[in-house]
């Protein structure tokens, strides 16, 4: 057990994967000598050589396409996309090739390719450096989409993702790279543990679902809510495709209320799918409609505005109020969803 930053926890996870299986390769831009712009691959090229930690030409489609070819040859490539916003030039190779090859060949070909993507906002960056593109991939059959929220999960999940025979989009919450935590080396017995949601705080009054960078925010919100006597259950989804609907449904069966938060734009985000799935599964048990607290349906804005775009503790608590049928910002807006104005007094 060591204390590591989330970024270092991934680094050690990659180190394990490279050491344990010589078919594991890393591909990406600036991952070699530089160790990646976030230093997640720091030291790995020096240790495993330039044939296994490969600086690739500046072309995302080429990185994914080459990984596919390498997988055909029996390798397990791990690609790094430098920032979320740079994944789109590789989109065709991901959704039309990588995702489909196993199905296309009736299982003859396996595509154990992991694509690491530092994602999300809150770091004051310029355009294209703060995006949350997970929903595009979660909508794509054939892919697995996961994201971690703390160092232990980062370490375990990257190793399990690499070991998984399916293609995995592995989203890394870049603004949490410097979060520290205890990290154990041993892997869970279940190789798909990385795809199961995890209850990070037990509670009874409402279920608050988050993933990636917002898990920490959700926990902070739960602490704040607790101060006001509201006991939130907080779930870290971990897997965005498939969604662990069972885990969330079990919680909602208990609480009857659901709040989902993510940074990505609201329309067609992962929150929409989860809200729809839970409504299908738990309709009679829901006391209120599931509430989404998300980024707005604008492009990711200039950094001076990102605090307004990103869900934060207050916006999450406002969503919790809504889910509890209490006075919330929604109360003030006209239309059908203003109906729940009769709830308790808001905290402010």
């Amino acid at each position, binding site marked *: 057990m060591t204390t590591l930053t989330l970024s270092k926890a991934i680094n050690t996870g990659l180190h394990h994967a490279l050491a344990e299986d010589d078919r594991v390769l890393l591909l990406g831009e600036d991952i070699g000598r530089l160790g990646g712009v976030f230093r997640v691959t720091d030291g790995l090229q020096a240790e495993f050589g330039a044939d296994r930690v490969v600086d690739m030409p500046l072309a995302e489609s080429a990185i994914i396409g080459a990984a596919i*070819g390498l997988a055909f*040859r029996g390798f397990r490539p791990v690609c790094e996309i430098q920032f979320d916003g740079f994944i789109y030039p590789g989109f065709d190779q991901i959704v039309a090739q990588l995702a489909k090859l*196993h199905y296309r060949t009736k299982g003859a070909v396996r595509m154990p390719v992991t694509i690491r993507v530092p994602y999300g906002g809150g770091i004051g960056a310029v355009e294209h450096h703060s995006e949350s593109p997970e929903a595009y991939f979660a909508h794509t059959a054939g892919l697995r989409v996961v994201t971690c929220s703390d160092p232990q999960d980062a370490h375990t999940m990257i190793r399990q993702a690499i070991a998984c025979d399916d293609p995995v989009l592995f989203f890394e919450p870049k603004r949490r790279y410097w979060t520290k935590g205890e990290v154990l080396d041993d892997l869970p017995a279940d190789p798909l543990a990385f795809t199961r949601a995890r209850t990070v705080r037990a509670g009874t009054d409402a279920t608050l679902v988050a993933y990636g960078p917002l898990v920490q925010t959700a926990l902070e919100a739960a602490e704040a809510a607790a101060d006001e006597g509201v006991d939130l259950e907080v779930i870290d989804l971990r897997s965005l495709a498939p969604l662990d609907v069972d885990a969330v449904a079990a919680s909602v069966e208990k609480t009857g209320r659901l709040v989902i938060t993510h940074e990505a734009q609201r329309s067609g985000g992962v929150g929409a799918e989860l809200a729809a799935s839970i409504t299908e599964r738990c309709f009679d048990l829901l006391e209120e409609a599931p509430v989404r607290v998300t980024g707005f349906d604008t492009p990711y804005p200039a950094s001076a505005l990102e605090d307004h775009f990103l869900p934060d503790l207050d916006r999450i608590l406002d969503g919790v109020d809504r889910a509890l049928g209490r006075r919330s910002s929604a109360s003030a807006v006209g239309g059908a969803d203003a109906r729940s104005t009769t709830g308790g007094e808001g905290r402010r």
Partner: protein
Amino acid sequence: MSMETHTQFPQDSDERGGDAREPVPVDHGCVQLLDPDGVRQEDALYDLFVADLGHTELLALYEDMVVTRRIDTEATALQRQGEIGLWPPSLGQEAAQVGSARVLRRGDFVFTSYREQAVAYCRGVELDQLMAMWRGTALSGWDPFAVGMATPAVIIGAQTLHATGYAMGCQRDGSDAVAVAYFGDGATSQGDVNEALVLAASFQAPVVFFCQNNQYAISEPVGLQAQRPIADRAPGFGVPSMRVDGNDVLAVTAAMRIAVDRARTGGGPTFIEAVTYRMGPHTTSDDPTRYRDESEVASWRAKDPITRLERLLESEGVLDETARAHVASVADAAAARVRAGCLALPAPDPLSLFDEVYATAHPGLERQREEYRSYLAMFEGGAR
């Protein structure tokens, strides 16, 4: 301050060439060892690479070409009869495909587009499996590892990166296996194909880029995609290239041997442009009369790849009745296998829809499968 000028600049500069406006003749700088009349043309370099081809080998190539053309004809007929949905003929491209594919070893790996039926035949793809994709009983018909050939990539150009990645894998394995990417003239406009050239050059990957320039991308003539001979593009990336008469199976064989030997021995990638012609429609759905003249097609008919080899073999007295009869019987058998195999392809089980989306467990999809199973169960003995 403006640095603008109106100085007339000289017509002949020392700039690197590339005047796009002079049209490129189709056979510009093309290597040809066998002319349309079946006459051998000398070429000091390329001849070396076909010197060992005796009558047996030439007859074998001839047989492959005749057989694959026959497969093509049979498949086209099956489409006309409504037995398959679509077919992209390889008609006219037999020399390019057979000549190149026959150079490869079993352990090499080929990544193609959708038109490489003759390549598939040479790799040993079973003929019923060849038809599955076009009959729609499967997305693709064969196990790539059984024949050393990936199933067709329909997204234009995507497979060139797979081939390059595969070749990088061969390097890492210390293997002398070679990867080959087949693609068309139209594909050269796609970003992926150009990225593959960059990648292959950077890592000196053992990959052969085999471009069949059949003059068209559906209705678009090659002149829309390329202002220079396509083979001229690769050297600028650091990939040596050759331009050969793609209807000349000897030239294709020679060029492919040069390229494959180079790749096998650590010499890196090579680009081959095989100049050929798509004699048929783009696919059975296409109407080429909308965009090209019969006279153009006729001029290419005179360059038919099979005819010229036939003439050579005739002039050398090899193509006697026995030989002809043998080839015809192989072709007939293949056609029969195509037809029978195609018609016998089993309709997939409805629930196989959910199979092999993932290699590992996926509860969401399992749930959908169960839902659909119970949905279907409602109809048992019923309407559907």
